[in-house]
């Protein structure tokens, strides 16, 4: 992996391999970025995905509360009563 340095006074462009330390830092940064992106994606669950997740993990009490709101955690979204 390389980095580009543009020395303005010397009018010189230089592609240089990263040092081992820089490689390690870069890897750490990338991994942190991937974890962050995954966490962000988690926040962007669709309604259907959220229901799927609730079907697995929600307690009966939460499922009962969701049913009051018109959400059937068995997978169907009930038509809201007018």
């Amino acid at each position, binding site marked *: *992996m*390389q980095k*580009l340095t*543009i020395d*303005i006074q010397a009018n010189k462009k230089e*592609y240089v391999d990263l040092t081992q330390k820089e490689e390690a830092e870069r890897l750490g*940064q*990338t991994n942190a970025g991937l974890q962050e*992106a995954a966490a962000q994606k988690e926040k962007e669950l669709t309604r259907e995905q959220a229901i799927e997740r609730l079907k697995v993990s929600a307690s009966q009490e939460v499922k009962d509360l969701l049913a009051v709101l018109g959400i059937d955690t068995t997978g169907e979204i009930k038509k809201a009563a007018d």
Partner: protein
Amino acid sequence: MNIDFMRKVNELDYRLDSQPKPEISLVLISESVLAGAVASVTFSSIPQNFKSLILQFQLRSSATAEVDINLVRFNADTGANYDHISVQFQSVGTSIAVSRAATSIRAGICEAANSRASNWSPTAIIIPGYSKADREKWLQQFSSAAFGNVSADTDLLIWLNAGRWRSANAITSITVLPNTGPNYVADGILQLYGLA
């Protein structure tokens, strides 16, 4: 035409010529097109004779995602010496992110590997008083990005950011790197301007 009249015209011309004229000039200090993938781009030996710097770029990240975040560091300082606040606008609303004592400033967003190939959304950063040694440095940044194939309203985003470097040192180098990357891909373009 009488002589008095001509004298008055000449005097008026002289007075107009002697008025100070507002002069603002934007000088292209350096431009670079990436010949290949790079983990970072650094502008070094930045001249110190301008009032402000303007850094503009169109970059894409190699990250396996639709977008990535640009990071900025000054004078190769990788310490926890940066603060920033950003506001992101999408059709569904806005979100705000703040970070203090970070190891870089988050400076906008760019497309990544899973975004439409021809998307190279721009980022512009202004750094006032970059050469002054009596004050900590701030940048202000404006950028935008298009997610994926822009198939939904939420695929368009604007990102405004203010970032601070906890140092009063004059800025002599600026490094831009992707948050996830690990690289910026070839054909990215960067321009560094000086505002005189």
